[in-house]
Every structure is written in C-alpha cells, then in structure tokens.
C-alpha cells in the first residue's frame, strides 16, 4: 500500500517535471479548432501516436485517452445539464398533452384509481369487521356489532344492499341477553353497563363505526406529507402567445412542471386536483427522480463485458475518485451556472488535507524515535534497538510528500488565478488542460490517495510504531533485570 503510494508520488513528480519542461509547448499543443488535442498521450500504453483525425474509432479512443477530463469539464457537464432540462420540458409537455386530450380519450387510469380505492376501503373494512380489530368490544355483543357494522358499511358504500339484519334486530338480541342476566353482576354491573358507552350495544356500535371509518380515511390519506421540494425545482416559461414566424413570445409567465400539470388537471377534471396530485408533489417526485437518475449506475460495455485491459491500461474515469461516470461526477460537483466548474479550489483543499496527513505521519514517527532516544540515553547500548528502516523511509517519504503537496498547491494557486481572471476563454481552456494533465499523471492528490494515506496511518503506521514501542519496553525490562 505504502509502496504503491510512493510509486505514485515518484512517478507523479517525474511526470510533472516533464510537464513543466513542456510548459511552453503545452499551450501550443496541436489543437483542432475545437480545442482538442489530436494526439493520444498514450494513457493506454505505448508512446505517443498521432492518429488519423478521420478515423472515427481511433479518434474516439484518442479523445478518451487524452482529453477525458477536458471533455468532462468543457462539454459533458453542459450536456448533462442541457439534456436534463430537455427531459423535464419534454416530460411535462407529454403529460400536459395527454391530460389535455382527456386522458387519451379514455381516462382509464382515473377510473382504475377510484375502483382501487373502493377495493382497498372494502378490504380495510372487512379486516376491521371480521378480524381481531374488535377485540376492545365487550364480548357478549361483539358479534352483533360486527354484523351491524358490516350491514351499515355495505349499505353506505354500495347502496341498495339488502341487509340481512338491522341494528334494531341486533339491539333486541342484546337487550334480551342483558335482560336475563342482571343477577350475574348486580348493580355494579348495571352501572358499568349503562355508564360506559362501550359497554352498551349502541355505544359499542357507534364507537366501532367511528374507529372503522377513521382507519379507512387514514389508509386512504396517509401519504399526505409536508413537502420539502416545492420551492422551484425547475422553472418553465410558459407563453400564451407565440408568433411562429417571428418567434416572438408574449404573455409569458414562470411556473413549474407541477404547476403546469396541476393546472391542466384542474381544467380537465372538474373536481379539481385534490383527489389526484398536487403541484408540489409532482415537483417533488420529478426532482427525486432526477436525483435518483444521477446516482443510477448505467454500465457501458467496459463494465458490462467485464473488459480488463492489458497491464498498461490506465483508468481515466471521471470524478475525484476516478470511478464515476460523467453524470455521477456531475452530481458530486458544485456546478456553476455556466456548466463549467472551477476544479482548483477542491484540488487545493485536498492538497491541504494531504499535508495534514503527512505531518501526522512525521509527528507519529518522531514520537517513537524520541522514546527510543530517551531509552538509549538512559540505558545506553544495553537497549540494542534501532529505528526500523521502514519507519525512517516512511518518514522521509512523508517529508517529500509535504514538499510535493506544497509545490502542487503553489502551482494550483497560480493556475487558479489565471482561471478566475483569464485573458480570454482560450486561456481558461488551457489552464483546465494543464490541470487535467497534472491530474492524469497523479500529481494532484485525490480522495483515493487520501484514503490510502489514512489507511496507512490507522493501520500500518500504528502497527509499526506499536511494534517499536514494544521492543523498547522489552529492552528496558531486560536492562533493568540485568542491573
């Protein structure tokens, strides 16, 4: 792990020196009129090869190999954003057209919806009436109440249903029961029965009915939630008058997909939209869909076919960790209005974190060395322990890395200054290219590198210094015993 890290740093330093030597020519590298280098930088392997720009296959490979990040920064982010907006517009327009057509002339989904609700309400009522939900009722007349509830519900929901028995029938039965059992409970029971509504057949019926309908309403309306998305996910400009010839538009207003759809529903469903869906809910769900789409991994042939390259193949994927598709990477970013982000700020911050890690390595190893020095000063040659070469090497590397990161930060700051205040667009493109070159050779610390360093600190370094401390303690004990 650490050696791999070392390897990367060393290769990065060398590569950066090469870049620096080419600095004068980098900005002059053969670009086509769209700013793309017409040469593969052999990121897939062997030396530079100038490809035929008219060979579609090689040209694509060249673009991916040499300019992936360039394309991402300058094109793909804008593409993702542009396509997302088109999708939203197209989805809204399609829904709108469909609603305005009267739900395609046959509002099947609306009638389906109502039937579904009736079915579900029936199920809830049935579960309530025939299930164990009536356990709270006093047992002598629970069955009678169930019958009454079922009867009433059927009458109300389905109309004209000929009930098998009426409430009064039930009540008569219950009264007969009660009338014959007074001696069982005496006055105490009588008061209990008469003063607690649940203990009377009528009271129990009313309570049960209320509870049943409460549950149905709850089941139907449970999804109503506070919306946290309504504040303008995406605005549409809807124009009432558009002159086709001139393209001029009048009577325009800004609205949202949800509002547009809700308005259409209001017009086409006279009952309004309350029973269907509200604008904020539409916006929320569409917004959530796009959030999910951004995270949805869609694997291309490389992943799908499990393609592995030869030993020289280098991954040059998007994202800070190098594993993301461009849209995934997009979701990681603070996209600016223009669709192009400033990569330097994040890179500078990561370098700062890297320096902090490297300092931690140096400090930890220094502390172990101090403990060893103290022991040697106290016990002299009896200690017989020396600093492990690996720790010395690791510390040396960490010190080098601190210098490297500091150097990189200096460069990034300068590039950032140019990026923020470019003389022209071309200059901005050039500094982005420079950044990509630095990134592609691993000069710029990324989150993967940081994770590896963190792993090294937490495990490898911890083990190594603990082993040294253990040796020192054993040596001290041995020296004390010798004395």
């Amino acid at each position, binding site marked *: 792990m650490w*050696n791999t890290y070392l390897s990367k740093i060393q290769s990065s330093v060398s590569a950066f020196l090469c870049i620096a030597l080419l600095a004068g020519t980098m900005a002059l590298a053969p670009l086509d009129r769209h700013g793309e280098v017409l040469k593969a930088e052999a990121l897939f392997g062997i030396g530079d090869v100038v490809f035929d720009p008219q060979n579609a296959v090689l040209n694509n490979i060249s673009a991916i190999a040499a300019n992936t990040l360039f394309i991402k920064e300058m094109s793909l982010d804008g593409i993702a954003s542009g396509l997302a907006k088109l999708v939203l517009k197209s989805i809204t327009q399609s829904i709108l057209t469909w609603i305005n057509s009267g739900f395609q002339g046959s509002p099947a989904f609306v009638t389906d919806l109502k039937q579904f609700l009736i079915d579900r309400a029936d199920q809830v009522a049935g579960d309530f009436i025939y299930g164990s939900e009536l356990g709270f009722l006093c047992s002598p007349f629970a069955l009678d109440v169930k019958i009454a509830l079922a009867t009433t519900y059927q009458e109300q929901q389905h109309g004209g249903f000929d009930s098998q028995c009426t409430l009064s029938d039930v009540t008569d039965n219950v009264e007969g029961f009660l009338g014959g059992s007074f001696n069982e409970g005496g006055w105490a029971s009588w008061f209990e029965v008469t003063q607690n509504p649940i203990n009377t057949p009528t009271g129990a019926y009313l309570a049960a009915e209320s509870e049943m309908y409460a549950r149905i309403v709850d089941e*139907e309306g449970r999804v109503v939630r506070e919306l946290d998305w309504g504040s303008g996910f995406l*605005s549409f400009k809807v124009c009432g008058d558009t002159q086709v010839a001139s393209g001029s538009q009048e009577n325009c207003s800004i609205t949202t997909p949800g509002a547009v759809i809700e308005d259409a529903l209001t017009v086409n469903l006279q009952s309004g939209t309350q029973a269907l869906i509200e604008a904020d809910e539409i916006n929320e769900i569409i917004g959530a869909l796009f959030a999910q789409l951004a995270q949805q991994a869609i694997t291309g042939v490389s992943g799908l076919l499990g393609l592995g390259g030869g030993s020289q193949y280098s991954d040059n994927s998007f994202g800070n960790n190098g594993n993301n598709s461009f849209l*995934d990477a997009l979701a990681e970013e603070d996209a600016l209005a223009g669709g192009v982000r400033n990569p330097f700020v994040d890179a500078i911050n990561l370098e700062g974190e890297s320096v902090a890690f490297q300092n931690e390595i140096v400090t930890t190893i220094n502390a172990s060395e101090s403990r060893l020095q103290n022991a040697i000063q106290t016990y002299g040659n009896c200690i017989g322990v020396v600093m492990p070469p690996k720790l010395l*090497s690791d510390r040396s590397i960490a010190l080098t890395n601190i210098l490297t990161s500091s150097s990189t930060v200096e460069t990034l700051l300068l590039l950032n200054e140019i990026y923020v205040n470019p003389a022209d667009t071309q200059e901005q493109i050039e500094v982005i290219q420079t950044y990509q070159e630095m990134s592609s050779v691993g000069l710029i610390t990324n989150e993967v590198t940081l994770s590896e360093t963190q792993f090294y600190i937490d495990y490898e370094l911890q083990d190594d210094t603990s082993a040294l401390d253990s040796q020192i303690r054993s040596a001290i004990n041995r020296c004390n015993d010798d004395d």
Partner: protein
Amino acid sequence: MSSSQKRISGALLAGAALIAGALLVNSYADSNTTTTQDAVVVTAAPLRTAIKITDNNDDGVPDWQESLLVTSALDMASTTDGFKEPDTLTEKFALSFFQDMVRAENYGAFGDTQEELVLEASNTLAAQAVDVLFTTQDIRVSPDNSAEALSAYGEAVARITTLYPDTSEENATVILARSLRTQSSTELAALDIKIEVYTNILQDTKELAVPNNLQREHLNVLNSYQAVLTDIQAMRTAFTDPMLALLRMKRYEDDNIGMAISLQNLYQKLVDGGATWDTGSVVTPFLAI
C-alpha cells in the same frame, strides 16, 4: 508565445522548480533506503461507487439540482398539439411515470412510496440503456488460427476503420454540447456522418471471418462498436428523445473505454498468437492503444 501562454508557462515553471526540490529530497531518501515499488496495474473494469451528493450551501437541495434551477427559463407553449401515441422513450416514460405518480399518491399506504416509485422508475430507465449483445451466433468463425490468418484478420479489422472517413473531425460530445448550448437541433446533423461511419464499420467487421481462438475478443469489439454507435444515435435524438440521450450519455465514457480495451485486448492476443505486420502498417496505431 502569447501573454496567456507565458502566464501558464510561468505558473508551471514555478511549480516545477518546487517539485524539482521535492524530487531531490526524494532521491536522497531513496539513496538511503531500499523500497520496492509496486507496479500499478489495472486489470479490471473501473468499479462504480455510490456518489457523494454535495450541498455546499446546506439548503437541503443537492448542488446538481440547484444547477437546474434555471435563471433562463425553458420555453414551453401553454397550448399543446393534438395527442399522439407516444413513440419515444421520453414520451412513454412521461405518461407511465405520471400515472404511477398519481396512483402512488392516491393509493396511500397501499401504493408505492415515493422512494419505491422513483427507484423503480430509475431502474426501468436504466434497463432501457442496455444493448442486446452480439453472440457467437452472429459471427462467422474460421478454424484457421495460423499466424498468417491472425495477421490477415488483424489487418482487416484495422483497415475497415479507415474505409469510412469521419469527415466531421469533431468529437460527438462537442457537437452535442454545442447543439444544446445554442438550442439548435440542426447542429446534430453533424452526427449523421459518425452514425454512418460506425454503422458501416460495425457491419463490415461483423462480416469478417474470425479465427476460432479470437471469438471472444471479436465479439467484444463488435459489442463495443455497437455501444458507441447506439450512444451517438441517441445523441442525435437529443431534442426529440432527450431521456434516451441522457441515459446513453451516462454510459458513453464507459463505452469508449470499452472500445479501447476491446481493441487493445484483440491486438494483444493477435500478437501473442504470432501475428506480425510491417512497420507503418494500418495496424500500427492499434498496437499503440
């Protein structure tokens, strides 16, 4: 050298000077210690990991979504044309998703939760971006695995790519980006030549007789060509079927990397099998991938 180039060069040289110092220190360290350097070898396709959603202004709305909060509104007519049966992925998805949305909202506890609804929709969409792969049933296989046969086959694969010049000389993404930026669907016509080129390359390569030992590599190349072709075809429909374009763009990078790797693997196996070509052959650039 322009002033801008001077500025960039200055920045790089300043960094280089500092790095040089670092290198010296590093070299010194190396001279005192022996360190084994691991070779960095990538043997598998890049893994995809969960993304980190950032919300730098901490307002609860992810940054990427905020990027969609347009300052320049999308134009949309308030009146709509007559309804027609949806024939694009975007239209079909729109109606299906809307109905599912309404049902989910109204079915309450019996319907899908919003999370389920969105996840199902996203998965359904992702499935639309999957190609039907070519199999051994689709190719012609030759029993001849001799070095001569391998050489001839390798040269044929390379030569096919040169038969159909891509006169646009622009990357497809550059064309698409410009089209979206200018909101001009006519710009996408520049993709037609690429579609034609890849269609022809795919067709011709598919008809080659493949040495028996190279079936897998050949199929990978075919499927890679097909994937890139389908991506570009989807780009072409950005204004009429933007959802399809969006989905295919999400795999575009991976498809191009796949194309590079599949060609790299193919020629590596050809070389391993004894195939040789003259210097300057049409194959040469493919050996450098």
